[in-house]
């Protein structure tokens, strides 16, 4: 083979982005492992012909300026967030080859959550985790991978298990997850180990290029400056000492059986979006609603009861029906944990004028579905207002004498229809009949558009009719 081993075309000839006079060398210290790994990655990208498709993510740390060197697409990111950014990049353009290049503080400390979850989702990323057991750029502080007894600026007496715990084994952690395809720990020590790393780099990239699989290569690498060693001592320390804590080898490899991932998005034309988003015309029958439209409607309705009584949907049905009669409407729930059990209430406004505040402080109509609701809201009702309450559940009548009171045994009536859950629709039917501001026919007809569970429409229609009949009989 007449090959020339030379600077890869994946590197810029001249590092124009590097400030200052020197635009030919990297910013790395003499003997730093980053440069070696950069060369192995660049060579592989060139050999595989994917330079143009590649996006290299520069992390925070000494390799923050990787984008000075790599003539690929480059994205520089916040400390630890490369796997999240990589997720966004890859999902946006599934054909791109995304490299997340991270140091030990970046990946194992501040970005621990991002790497574990990107790995667990099986994102189509290739992660190079440079483990040099120290924080290089910030001045030699402890890393999560700092060895026991190792002296750093923040472990001046050496890392102790009592205070700092043990060095973290990220490859082993990642390998316990199901989605990662290939996890190996390699080192940049003697010649043999570098050539083995070269193989691992190529395999990891291949898995992304061919199958969009997630690979994780932990590279034990020297930081001679941070370790206060010569480059040769540094490589020896990697080989002799680091490997004792961080055993080399393949930790997980399912590349043979892995079938590949497809991150491509659906191709959708803008013209299809209204249908996809369930945006439909709301039918308004001007002729049919004409006899019911009143010019001075200004109902402020408070609906309250237990969670599960259909209090909120009672409100939405009233509002939706109001909208179908060209009234201005708004619906505001009491939201949050109380929705899941406990009490629920909502405020509905139905008005012939533009609605300002959607808040109902003094309702013109109170619908009380249980005793606590009546107790709580009775005094708020405006003088001359209306109180509708479920007399099958509430054992007292309202004490107010300046309001109209309609007791309806709604739950009992619903039970007779075979489902206590439709007590709310009995109230709807009664209220519509009583107020006379909406067409019962339209309400019944459009119930199918309003309710989510279409199967229950006939039963709900029955309930509305029953509620209306009840009002007719007491009038």
């Amino acid at each position, binding site marked *: 083979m007449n090959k020339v081993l030379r600077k890869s075309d994946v590197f810029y000839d001249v590092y124009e982005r590097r*400030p200052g006079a020197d635009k030919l060398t990297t910013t790395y210290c003499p003997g730093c492992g980053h440069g070696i790994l950069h060369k192995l990655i660049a060579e592989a990208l060139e050999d595989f012909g994917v330079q*143009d*498709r*590649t*996006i290299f993510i520069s992390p925070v740390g000494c390799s923050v*300026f990787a984008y000075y060197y790599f*003539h*690929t*697409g*480059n*994205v*520089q*990111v*916040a400390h630890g*967030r490369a796997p*999240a*950014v*990589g*997720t*966004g*990049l*890859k*999902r*946006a*353009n599934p054909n*791109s080859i*995304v490299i997340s290049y991270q140091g030990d503080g970046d990946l194992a400390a501040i970005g621990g*959550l*991002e790497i574990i*979850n990107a790995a667990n*989702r099986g994102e189509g990323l290739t992660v190079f985790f440079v483990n040099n057991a120290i924080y290089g750029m910030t001045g030699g502080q402890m890393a999560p991978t700092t060895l026991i007894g190792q002296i750093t600026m923040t472990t001046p007496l050496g890392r102790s298990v009592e205070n700092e715990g043990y060095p973290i084994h990220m490859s082993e952690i990642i390998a316990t997850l199901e989605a990662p395809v290939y996890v190996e720990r390699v080192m940049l020590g003697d010649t043999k180990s570098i050539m083995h790393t070269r193989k691992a780099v190529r395999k990891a990239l291949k898995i992304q290029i061919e199958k969009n699989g997630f690979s994780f290569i932990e590279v034990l690498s020297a930081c001679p400056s941070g370790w206060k060693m010569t480059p040769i001592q540094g490589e020896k320390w990697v080989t002799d000492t680091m490997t004792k804590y961080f055993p080399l080898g393949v930790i997980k490899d399912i590349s043979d059986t892995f079938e590949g991932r497809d991150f491509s*998005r*659906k191709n*959708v034309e*803008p013209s299809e*979006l*209204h249908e*996809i*988003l369930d*945006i*439909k*015309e*709301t039918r*308004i029958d001007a002729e049919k609603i004409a006899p019911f439209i009143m010019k001075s409607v200004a109902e402020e309705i408070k609906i309250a009861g237990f969670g599960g009584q259909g209090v909120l949907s009672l409100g*939405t049905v009233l*509002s*939706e029906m109001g*909208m179908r009669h060209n009234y201005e*409407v*708004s*619906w505001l*729930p009491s*939201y*949050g*944990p109380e929705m899941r059990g406990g009490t629920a209430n909502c405020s509905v406004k139905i008005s012939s004028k533009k609605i*300002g*505040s*959607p*808040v109902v*402080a003094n309702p013109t109509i109170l619908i009380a579905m249980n005793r606590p609701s009546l107790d709580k809201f009775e005094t708020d009702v405006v003088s001359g207002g209306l109180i509708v309450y479920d007399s099958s559940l509430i054992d007292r009548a309202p004490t107010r004498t300046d309001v109209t009171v309609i007791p309806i045994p709604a739950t009992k009536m619903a039970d007779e229809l075979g489902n206590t859950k439709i007590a709310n629709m009995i109230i709807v039917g009664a209220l519509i009949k009583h107020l006379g501001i909406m067409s019962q026919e339209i309400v019944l007809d459009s119930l199918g558009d309003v309710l989510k569970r279409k199967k229950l429409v006939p039963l709900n229609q029955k309930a509305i009719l029953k509620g209306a009949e009840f009002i007719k009989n007491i009038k």
Partner: protein
Amino acid sequence: MPKQFLKGNEAVVKGAILAGCKAYYGYPITPASEIAHAAALYFPRAGGTFIQAESEIAAINMVYGASSAGLRAMTASSGPGISLKQEGVSYCAGSELPCVIVDIMRGGPGLGSIAPEQSDYNQVVKGGGHGNYKNIVLAPNSVQEMCDLGILAFDLADKYRNPVFVLTDGFIGQMMEPVEFPEPIAQEKIPEKSWVVKGTIETSDNVITSIELDPDDLERHVNKLQKKYSIIEEQEVRVEEYHTDDAEIVLIGYGIVSRIIHSVIDELREEGVKAGMLRPITLFPFPKKKIAELTERVKFFLTLEMSNGQMVDDVRLVVEGKKPVYFYNRMGGNVPSMKEVHDKVMKIMRLS
């Protein structure tokens, strides 16, 4: 009419998709969760991506990635989540990445409550994260505006390569109102972005970054950002005025508060009180000129907020003590009632 009765939280998602947004990354939080629910349902169907991120920080960084790759991208949360996202927002601002963040404000500090507040004003309008940057902030007060301003947010984000917040409160997020949806934006109407990193030969010379170690380089970059912000202040102010023409007292409020003010103004006018409302629709850019103009002709201002007085500071900076600026607030999830606002106005008017 093509009206749909919807929650604000759902309307903003449908609007975003109609605006060509293709990426939603988020983390659930009350009272913003319905945004994630709707996004999970509709984004994949509409040719987009939805991922429930492992954290708020991851979510905004996924947005950072998707935006770097050229997509219209969004996330949403409420106060506690927005606090976490600030790191990523600062990076987006520094790297000049367009993105849309919806904040459905709830009570704070700490876990606070899930009821509505307006206490994120400072952390959203004043930047929030580290560094000399500004977000564009739109403040909808109806479900219709959740859709409309949501769409505008994407246009402004792309136009200025800047993060845009849709800032509103739990009530506007949770309430339902009729919405009319516009036609979807045509793909060719979304501006071409030559600066993106897409994994193509055309974009392989591009870099997205916010680091400039040389003080002169960084100063140049930050000055460029400031220049952009002044153009935004010049061109993008949006307000709603109601009866300000002859007003003696102008009530200032945004979001749900402006809805209450609107109703109170109607009452006051019936009683013969010359009251008007100024509603900032953009909180940054803040309507400084409009307030300065009103300062010349009104007697009083009354700023109403569901916070400890975060926006009123900005009003006072513009009014410069030339006219009294009164303040009324409720906090903890309470909403000022019409009666409270009415009484406050009458008290001020009687003082005169």
